[in-house]
């Protein structure tokens, strides 16, 4: 079979004319394909966006890290009276024990509290984090201006602080905060650095990632010196309803030497901690495992999406086949005439197959445009992150063309197999 490009273009133009002749019918016919393609692209974009966010958040925890968090058990709150002293969480003893695990390279402890930060009458509720200089590296913190505190400042318990970007904008809307003084409780701290902004959507809490934007980082020794080891949770009433807890460490970040040792190390940590903690007032978070889980979820999500899309595209294809069969019947006489003036069966097949592919491909194009538009609307109004991948556009468009071929071949064959004489007599 010789394929003549110029002739092909003429066939396509010819087919396009016939489709354009029945605009409404053609439009209704391709709606199935339009929605099929648009939903594939839009849903994949939303899914991809969500999993991208999740992945970023998990990665920000460090994939070679294991994080242990102190957890206040809810039963404690019931049995204990308010304003009495609760004790929970990770301790120095845990620290020393965990240090002996060979695959653990380093443990970075962190102590936290929620407290108001003041400066020249302005205030913001921030998360005060006392930790070590290495914290910056294991948590992938970026420093926009200034610097992080160092080993010397840690040794000397210097009153220095690094502030998050939200803290900076509410306390220092215009002036340069470096070198300025902020007040936490009754102590004063010198600002030496500003952390880079981290963009997370609201879902970050579910992955235990901290909101670095409202954090204030201070040397651990300094927090010990100024605030001790107590945390105060302010209740809704007066001072009497405040809840005081004795917590040595809120978080350990354990660096593990090799990625494939992470899971065994995690179970070892679980064993070690369960020996000394009667209640499970801690939580072990393995970012790598979360990452794997997220990927698994995404795979399932894609399979579900894929089958929904496949069904809608098949339905769209059946719609096209239905109309093409009607068109063949409607134009039986035309087919007879074309055969009489010398059209071969192949020419008739080409004509009708081209029309069905034009239908499905234009449906595909409209669907792609709609599929690109919908995620933008979702992002704008629902604030969800969306990510349109080129392969989803390419794939769904290719499928729409393939649907046109698959469901167009039968009507086209039927048209070509008509007896020319019968077709010429058809009324």
């Amino acid at each position: 079979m010789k394929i003549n490009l110029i002739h092909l273009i003429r066939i396509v133009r010819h087919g396009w004319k016939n489709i354009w002749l029945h605009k409404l019918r053609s439009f209704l016919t391709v709606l199935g394909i339009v929605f099929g393609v648009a939903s594939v692209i839009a849903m994949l974009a939303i899914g991809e966006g969500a999993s991208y966010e999740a992945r970023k958040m998990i990665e920000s925890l460090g994939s070679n890290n294991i994080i242990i968090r102190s957890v206040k058990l809810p039963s404690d709150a019931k049995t204990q009276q308010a304003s009495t002293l609760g004790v929970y969480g990770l301790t120095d003893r845990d620290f020393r024990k965990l240090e002996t695990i060979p695959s653990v390279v380093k443990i970075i402890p962190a102590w936290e509290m929620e407290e108001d930060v003041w400066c020249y009458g302005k205030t913001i509720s921030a998360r005060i984090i006392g930790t070590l200089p290495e914290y910056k590296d294991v948590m992938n913190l970026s420093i926009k201006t200034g610097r992080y505190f160092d080993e010397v400042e840690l040794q000397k318990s210097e009153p220095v602080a690094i502030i998050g970007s939200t803290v900076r904008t509410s306390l220092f809307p215009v002036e340069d905060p470096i070198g300025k003084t902020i007040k936490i409780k009754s102590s004063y701290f010198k600002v030496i650095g500003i952390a880079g902004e981290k963009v997370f959507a609201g879902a970050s809490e579910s992955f235990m990632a901290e909101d670095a934007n409202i954090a204030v980082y201070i040397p651990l020794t300094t927090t010990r010196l100024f605030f001790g080891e107590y945390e105060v949770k302010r209740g809704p009433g007066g001072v009497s309803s405040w809840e005081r807890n004795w917590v040595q460490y809120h978080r350990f970040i354990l660096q593990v030497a090799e990625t494939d040792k992470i899971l065994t190390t995690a179970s070892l940590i679980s064993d070690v901690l369960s020996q000394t903690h009667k209640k499970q007032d801690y939580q072990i978070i393995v970012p790598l495992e979360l990452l794997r889980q997220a990927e698994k979820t995404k795979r399932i999500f894609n399979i579900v999406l894929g089958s929904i899309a496949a069904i809608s595209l098949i339905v769209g294809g059946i719609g096209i086949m239905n109309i093409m069969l009607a068109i063949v019947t409607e134009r039986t006489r035309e087919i007879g005439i074309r055969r009489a003036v010398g059209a071969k069966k192949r020419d008739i097949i080409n004509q009708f197959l081209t029309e069905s592919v034009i239908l499905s491909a234009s449906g595909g194009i409209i669907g792609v445009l709609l599929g690109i538009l919908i995620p933008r609307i979702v992002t704008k109004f629902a604030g969800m992150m969306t990510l349109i991948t080129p392969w989803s556009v390419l794939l769904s468009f290719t499928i729409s063309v393939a649907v046109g071929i698959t469901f167009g071949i039968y009507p086209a064959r039927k048209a070509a197999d008509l007896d020319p004489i019968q077709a010429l007599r058809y009324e």
Partner: protein
Amino acid sequence: MNQNNNQIIRFEEIVKIYHLGKDIDIPVLRGVSCEIKKGEHVAIMGPSGSGKTTMLNIIGCLDKISSGKYFFEGKDISSFDDDALSEIRSKKIGFIFQSYNLIPQLTVLENIEMPLFYQQVDEAKTREKAIKLAHMVGLEDRIKHRPSELSGGQQQRVAIARALMNDPVLILADEPTGNLDSVSGKEIMNLLCGLNEKGTTLIVVTHDANIAKYAGRVLKMLDGRIANEN
């Protein structure tokens, strides 16, 4: 068989049987033998059901024969397949029908151009030729119209222009004036006879004796056989 140089069609004992259902066979042609020379004008007459249209369809390679032999320009095409027969229709034959058979959604010009579309002839050349033919049949001012906007006589003239598009050696007309008044009918016959005078073989099926008069030879058919030849 060597005198077939000026012979365009030879039928040898052609039989055509239509199969309706399993056991019902309807013989339409029961052994037809005849010859038609190049440049002849032949009329085929006969009552309805005599097989004249079937004969025309077989001559025009639209229908296949059940038995016998069909020589077209000296070649036995009895066993040609669908593609080969399409090729002959495309290159050698022009059809004219009683009901014009123009494609309604195409313009006059596009209808005329159609035969060359399937020969994949260059678009500009096709257009040029179609306009020339539209001139010839006197429809140069109607080329952008749709068939439904034309009178019967005009539509049939479009059909003639279309039939001439591929420079056929043979024009087959099935009751070409059947749907026309006598004036338009005369015009159409004059057009066709003019073509015949220029050397194109013309075969007309009709049951109108006035139309048959134009022909140089009349084949009278009855019950699937040639009853009379003069």
